């Protein structure tokens, strides 16, 4: 188990800048998720750590040792590929034993360690099967076993759950988390699914267009996003455009098309700056006027989702906002409503 430090990591493919000036430190035993939409550079970053891409600039240190010039086989990372990359011509046993063979261990020891890890991941009895004879979940666990059995310094996972169905994916999330905690192994986990990142990670690194936008725990990213893009990517939000009027301590007041609103955040913003007010659908209340902000609008659509009611409300000026409330809400399409929210629930980011 070792820490990973990325410094000014950059990767250029011809004209395209896939990763730009990335600085990231992952502590020992931590699981950091690289989260972002496709093309944001998260997979490229992972591949650079693994050694399948050479950085254009910057350094990669694993346990304080510079590895950027080392070929993949000398980096001691265990990687789980998106499509598992199980060797189709080898059995489960031979797949898992592969890394140990490369390290020149004795046959008896290889057999023992392979048997132990297969038992641990619940694949006992399947060691003589070939990958194509396994279910998706079993293939996944084989790939995990193969990466873990070599006791790597670092575990790298490239969207390992993308090919599983929804229910299995949820189960496997917790499973991977437990396994990682038990082995206490430094882990980098690439995903585009923010719910997955929020369940699994100690820290989430949100990447967009090659740059690191924000690093923090799930709750920080959700409640205090650094930018409109992050606010929009992590969870669902409503973004109201406005201009900063003034600041009072932690409270900011914003001129918007629907009135003067009070919220928090926008640390580096000054009066006159353009900004977005981010307010999550669950923080908007229908028809309350609770001493906080109030906005008028007309209900345009309503959907009953079992545990929630999902509303689309049109505000003055035409913007459509999303509201989620208790399922018993009475308002219907066409109704004029007042939406309220507490200033603490609103978060301001630059525009």
């Amino acid at each position, binding site marked *: 188990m070792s820490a990973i430090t990325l410094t000014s990591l950059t990767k250029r493919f011809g004209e395209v800048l896939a990763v730009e000036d990335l600085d990231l430190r992952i502590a020992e035993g931590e699981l950091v998720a690289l989260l972002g939409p496709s093309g944001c550079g998260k997979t490229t970053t992972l591949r650079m750590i*693994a050694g399948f891409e050479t950085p254009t600039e910057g350094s990669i240190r694993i346990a304080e040792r510079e590895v950027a010039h080392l070929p993949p*086989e000398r980096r001691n990372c265990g*990687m789980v590929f998106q499509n598992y*990359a199980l*060797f*189709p011509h080898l059995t489960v046993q031979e797949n898992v034993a592969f*890394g140990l063979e*490369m390290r020149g261990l004795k046959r008896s020891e290889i057999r023992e360690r392979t048997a132990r890890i297969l038992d641990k991941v619940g694949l006992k009895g399947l060691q003589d099967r070939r990958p194509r004879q396994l279910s998706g979940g079993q293939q996944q666990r084989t790939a995990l076993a*193969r990466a873990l059995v*070599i006791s790597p310094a670092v575990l790298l996972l490239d969207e390992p759950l993308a090919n599983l169905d929804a229910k299995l994916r949820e189960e496997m999330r917790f499973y991977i988390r437990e396994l990682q905690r038990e082995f206490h192994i430094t882990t980098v986990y690439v995903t585009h699914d923010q719910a997955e990142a929020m369940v699994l990670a100690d820290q989430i690194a949100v990447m967009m267009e090659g740059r690191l936008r924000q690093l923090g725990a799930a709750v920080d990213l959700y409640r205090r996003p650094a930018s409109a893009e992050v606010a929009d990517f992590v969870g669902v939000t409503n973004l109201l455009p406005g201009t900063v009027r003034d600041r009072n301590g932690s409270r900011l007041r914003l001129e918007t098309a629907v009135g003067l609103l009070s919220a928090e955040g926008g640390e580096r913003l000054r009066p006159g700056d353009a900004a977005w007010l981010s307010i999550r659908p669950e923080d908007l209340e229908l028809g309350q006027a609770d001493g906080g902000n109030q906005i008028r609008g007309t209900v345009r659509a309503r959907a009953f989702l079992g545990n929630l009611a999902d509303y689309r409300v049109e505000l003055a000026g035409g913007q459509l906002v999303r509201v989620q409330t208790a399922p018993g809400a009475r308002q219907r399409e066409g109704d004029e409503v007042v939406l309220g929210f507490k200033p603490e629930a609103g978060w301001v980011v630059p525009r």
Partner: protein
Amino acid sequence: MKLRIAVTLIYAFLLAPIVIVVLAAFNGGSYLTFPPQGLSLRWFDSFFHSRPFTRSFLFSVELATVATVLATLIGSGAALYVARSRSRLLNLVQVLMIAPLPVPGILTGIALLLFFYATGFATKGWPPMIIGHALICLPYVFLVVSAVLVGLDPSLEEAARNLGAGPFTAFRRVTLPIVKGGIISGAIFAFITSFDEFNISLLLSGVGTVPLPIQLFDFLRFSFDPTAAVVGTISIAMALVVVLATERLVGLESLYWGAR
């Protein structure tokens, strides 16, 4: 329904001469008649006693073997390079590798003849024939091996590297076993291409280095003797072996080793 009849007739058209040749080889009479004049192996006997034919048959087999080994080695190498490379020259390399295919065979033969003459290299005999045959076999090996490599998941080799295998070990333990069938398939195609090759041989064959197709051609210009049909039957049998072998190799490949 009409389509099915038409298709059956066209297939019959495609296979007719081949069937006829096999019938002629076993026919008792000296030319094929309706109805056939009884079965006989006399033409096989005639073939095996004909020194020109047996010699050219052996020569063709030897030549095809050498050309195949050469073409397979260098063609597979080129295919590997193309499959794993990101170079901007890639298109050029690919075009060069398949260029001998669409270009008319006789033109290539002529070009080689003139080239060997101009460079003082032998224009007849083993060396020019090996080069010429290897040249036309190359595109086939390249195409077949390339196709198999395209279906090969690149992350398999990466996984091997990640687990501690160096580049050669990864190739040997992971890529090669999976791609093996494709390479053998390409080699088989190359062999039969060389064995059947006429145009290049026409211009570069010399005394003592006459491959079977040339021998047959000379024979057929003046004679109708069904001994030629025996040659045909052997060729057809070889073609069948190729088809079945490829079916087994590449068929087995996609079935078991998921190279898709």
